Every structure is written in C-alpha cells, then in structure tokens.
C-alpha cells in the first residue's frame, strides 16, 4: 500500500497538533488555569492519529479518558476541544464534560469515557446501528490495557462476535493502567490473544509506527465490514504520568528514557526526512502551523464565556 505525501503530512500535522495541544494542557494545569484533571497521551500519538485518520466521516469512534489524539485523529475542531478543556460554553460539550468527556458527534466521536471499559458496550450498540441500517461504516472502540481486564471487555467482544458487527476494537497498550504495569494486571504478554476467546481475529502492532497503524487500520476497516469484529492491539508507552499529578515512583527513569527514544513523532519525522525525502522546511512549517493552531485554539477558548448558571439545568433530558 502506497501512501501519498499528502496523507503522510496530514498524519504528521495531526500528531504535532496533538503534541502541542497536550503540552499546552500540561502547562495550563501547572499554572492552575484548569480545574479538574486530564490524562495525557504524549508518546502515544501514533496510535490515536494513525487509527483516527484512517476512518471516514460516517465511522464512529468511542474514546477513552486519554483521548485527545483519538479526537484529533477523527477530526475534531481544536478550538472546541481547547474550550472544553477550559470548561467554556463554546467547548464541544459546552463545558460540561471536560477532558474526560470530549465528544463531537458531528465528526463521529461518540465521546470519551471516564469509566475504564465503559465505552466497549456502547461501541457494540453503535456498530449494531450501522449494521441494522445497512451503513457502509465501522465503529472503532478505543480502550487501554487496563480496560482489557474489565468485564465489559469480555461481554462486548463476545456480543460483537456473535452478531458479526463492524466494530474494530483498538487496545492502546501503553504498558500501564495508572501505576500498574501490565505484567501485574494480567498473566499474558499480548492482549491480542484474547481475541481467540471470541473466535475473533487478533492483531498486535507497533503502536509507535504511525504509517503501520494507519495502513493496518485501513485494512482492518475493510475486514470488519466484511467479517465482523477484530481486536487490534497497539503497543506504545505513556511518557508522562497517569494524570496531571503523578510522581511516577512506580517505574524506573531508565524505562521512560528508553521509550523517549521511540517517541513516535521523532520516529516519523526521521522517516519523512530520510525515507520520504520531505524537505525539513516543509516539516518545520507544519510544526509551526500546529503550534499556531493551538495558540489560536487557546485564544479562542480564553476569550469564550463561561456557561451561565442556568445552563446547569439544560440537556438533562431530550425533548
């Protein structure tokens, strides 16, 4: 499969936007400008972007609490996501969701979930709708390695399997659930073997290789439309702590260091320069643009009003 430079640069651009978004968010938290918490995906961008960018407008995604890259991959408006982080009326969830509940139905994001594993059953339902209505579309359900130990994982994969639903289960294995290394939460090395329990295809990939992730997602999309669900595990690493405050005493500095060398953005940049011969100036320009996009988003968010008190009572029920 050959990827055009356009696509490659789109991927690079979204990865950079994600990184800039996250670094800005880290800063905002450090400055005490954001109430609440957020979970950063720095180091995991290839997974969210590689998958999300391979999807079509009609495809759905269910995001995780660590889902900024997933949202950007699927095409969320950065201004609206930043405004949401700041709890503003102009946020994609009108300031009611925050980072843990980023959603944008207009681009097919059915929302991030604060409940680990909570999105899995929902994804089965979204795919059921697609199948029921005969849509030529898929649902992607993101979840973490930790979530793979929730009962909802088991029930959802089984149900999707017997109904042959067009859902792609994407496990972003960043090695940790909070402070718990995967070796302490399960006795297997590779979560993709769990697919066999449902007679489902399982695939295990280097989640830091955005080109690989993108290509395999394109294939997987066609596969699940035809054959029903598939489990795709993307191996990556959470470079920062679990959430805004985490001293990370549970893991060795060396471990983090060694993964920093595998930073998916660095790897991809090198690939673009050396293998794809993209001039550095082109990349630099995209990088600057991404930084600017985030500054713009911040300006948008900061200049947006807080929701009025009476909004508290809105949208509890639909009419």
């Amino acid at each position, binding site marked *: 499969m050959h990827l055009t430079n356009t696509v490659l640069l789109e991927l690079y651009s979204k990865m950079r936007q994600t990184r800039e978004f996250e670094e800005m968010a880290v800063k905002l938290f450090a400055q005490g400008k954001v109430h609440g918490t957020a979970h950063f995906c720095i180091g995991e961008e290839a997974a969210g972007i590689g998958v999300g960018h391979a999807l079509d407008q009609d495809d759905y995604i*269910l995001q995780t609490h660590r889902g900024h890259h997933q949202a950007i991959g699927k095409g969320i408006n950065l201004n609206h996501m930043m405004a949401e982080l700041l709890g503003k009326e102009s946020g994609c*969830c009108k300031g009611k969701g925050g980072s843990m509940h980023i959603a944008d*139905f207009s681009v097919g994001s059915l929302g991030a979930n604060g409940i680990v594993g909570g999105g899995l059953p929902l994804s089965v339902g979204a795919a059921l709708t697609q199948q029921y209505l005969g849509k030529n579309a898929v649902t992607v359900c993101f979840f973490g390695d930790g979530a793979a130990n929730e009962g909802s994982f088991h029930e959802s994969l089984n*149900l999707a399997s017997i109904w042959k639903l067009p859902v792609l289960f994407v496990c972003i294995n960043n090695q940790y659930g909070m402070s718990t290394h995967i070796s302490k939460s399960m006795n297997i090395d590779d979560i993709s073997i769990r697919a066999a329990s449902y007679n489902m295809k399982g695939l295990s990939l280097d989640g830091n290789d955005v080109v690989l992730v993108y290509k395999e997602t394109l294939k997987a999309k066609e596969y699940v439309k035809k054959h029903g669900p598939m489990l795709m595990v993307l191996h990556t690493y959470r470079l920062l702590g679990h959430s805004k405050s985490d001293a990370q005493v549970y893991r060795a500095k060396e471990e983090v260091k060694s993964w920093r060398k595998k930073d998916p953005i660095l790897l991809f940049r090198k690939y673009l320069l050396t293998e794809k011969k993209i001039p550095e100036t082109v990349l630099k320009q995209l990088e600057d643009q991404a930084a600017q996009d985030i500054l713009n988003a911040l300006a948008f968010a900061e200049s947006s009003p807080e929701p009025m008190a009476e909004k508290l009572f809105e949208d509890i*029920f639909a009419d």
Partner: protein
Amino acid sequence: MREITYAEAIREAMSEEMRRDTGVLLLGEDIGTYGGAFGVSRGMIEEFGEKRIRETPISEAAIVGAAAGAAMTGLRPIVELMFSDFITLAMDQLVNQAAKNRYQFGGQGSVPMVVRAPSGSGKGAAAQHSQSIEAWCCHVPGLKVVVPSTPYDAKGLLKSSIRDNNPVVFFEQKLLYPVIGEVPEKEFSEDHLIPLGKADIKKEGADLSIITYGRMVHLSLAAAERLHSLGIKVEVVDLRTLVPLDSKTIIDSAKKTGKVLVVHEAVKTGGFGGELVSTIVDSEAFCSLTSPVKRLCGYDVPIPYNKNLEAYAVPTEESIYKTVLGMMQR
C-alpha cells in the same frame, strides 16, 4: 372495551411501536422462541424476525450498553432484563452512560431506550429475584421511571416510553402479568398514549389519601373498598410514573384529605416513599395535614423463599386496611 392481560398489553405496545417505527427493536435473553422468562414477547419473533427480536448471551452490562450505543446513533432499543434485580449488573451502563451521556456531552445526542424490568416479590424466587429497586433509578438524573399498575396504563405508558427520547426504566411487577383489564379496542390502539408524569386518581375520596403505584394500587383499592363500608372514604392515587413525578396531584390530594399514607412494596428505608412524604410536607399541603404522614412499605429485609415469610415481608390488603383504620381512629 376489550380485556387483556398486563403481559399482553405490554406485548401489544411493543408490537404496535415496532410496526410503526422500524427503528424499534427488542434485545434480551431468551426473548425469541422461548418468549422471555415471563412469556411477554411470545410470538414476536415470528412477526419481526431475528433482526429485530435480538436474543443475547447472558451479558447484562453489554446488553444495556449496546442498547445505549444503538440509541445514541439512531435506533430505539427496548431491553428486556429478565429480572429487575439484574440492573445491578448493568448499573454502570445505565447510570454512568445512558443517563449521563447527553448531559456530559453538552446536549449532543440523545438516548431513546427503554429498559423493561420485571420486579417484585411473590413468586418464591427469593432474595436475588424479588427486589423492588425503582428508588435507585429515581435517584439518577437523566433516567425516567415508570411503574404501571394496569393493562391500560402499561400499554399506554410503554408506548409513550418507547417514543420518549430518553432512557426510561419500565418496571413490570411480575405478579401483575396475568392481571386482566380493559384496554382500548384495536382501532384506537395506535393512539393510546399515556403521557409520562401524570398520576391517575384510581379512586376518589375525601378522608385519607393513599399515594402508591404498581401492584400496591390493587391492594389499596381493595382495602379502600372495605373501608368504604365503614364510611371511610379513601382516595387512591396511582403515580404511574415516579420520574417525572406528578407532584401537583399528590399535593392536591393531601390538601383535600389532610391525611396521607404512602404505600410501596420496596423496602422502607431509602425507598421512594421518603420522596413522596417529603414532597408533601414541604408543600402548601403541610398546613392541611391533620396527622403524621405515614409510610407502609416492605420491611427492611431481603425477600425470603418461604411462602409465608415472603408474603409477610410486603404490604397486603389487610395491612393497608389496618393502617388506614389506625390513622382514622387516632
């Protein structure tokens, strides 16, 4: 009017709405050929096929969650939980997902689904299959809660619930399934809709108000009948929906009679009765009250297997009768 059972009324409501709207489908365990644990969906698979009468594995969280996901994306699923007690297994999907999604996403999407939940005691099914847990659901913003008492109400309320754009938990008391009652003739069926949030005064009276719902409506009416012959005129208010609650009808009744007895089968402590009592005593009805507002509810015990103990655990016609008498004699 023709007469059918409560179970048939529910089946008719589902079937009519499924004919009317192809987005409506039914999910649940053994709802196909078997017809569901209580035979409610019997025959529906023949008419609607496996695509719309979708049998599931025993995976309550996934069933309710899948319904929520389908609802968010354009369908109108009905879930039959085999017993309302199994809400415990789907509580996250019901409470944290279905009920909150619209709100936490700032009004994006809606979750039009119905969870049908057979509830209550009386079948010798013991502690894990006999609970009345509607109060939990009432304590969750974003959920609507319905507990119909008659075939007429069951049908009209279920049709409204299916058309409602929000998650509705629809409690069906198991002992009511065989109860027979009038429903509109077939030609008026389609339009037989009872709005959520409107109580029904099943019997008018001036001396004392019984505020109740579900099966207890029948016991209250029977007790009221007996009390009538003693000259005590009891008003029986059937709430029909707990959320949204028709406070006005309750408060008006309390103002009229000055004496209120709240009756439900669910255990007393933490039950919805507390909400009803509070609604009354924090209203203008407070000044009209001539005696303490009482609750007659299930005892605070798990439901035991033994038939006598089981019957003793919840209010009966007799205990309602006696409680009213006691209140009137004071």
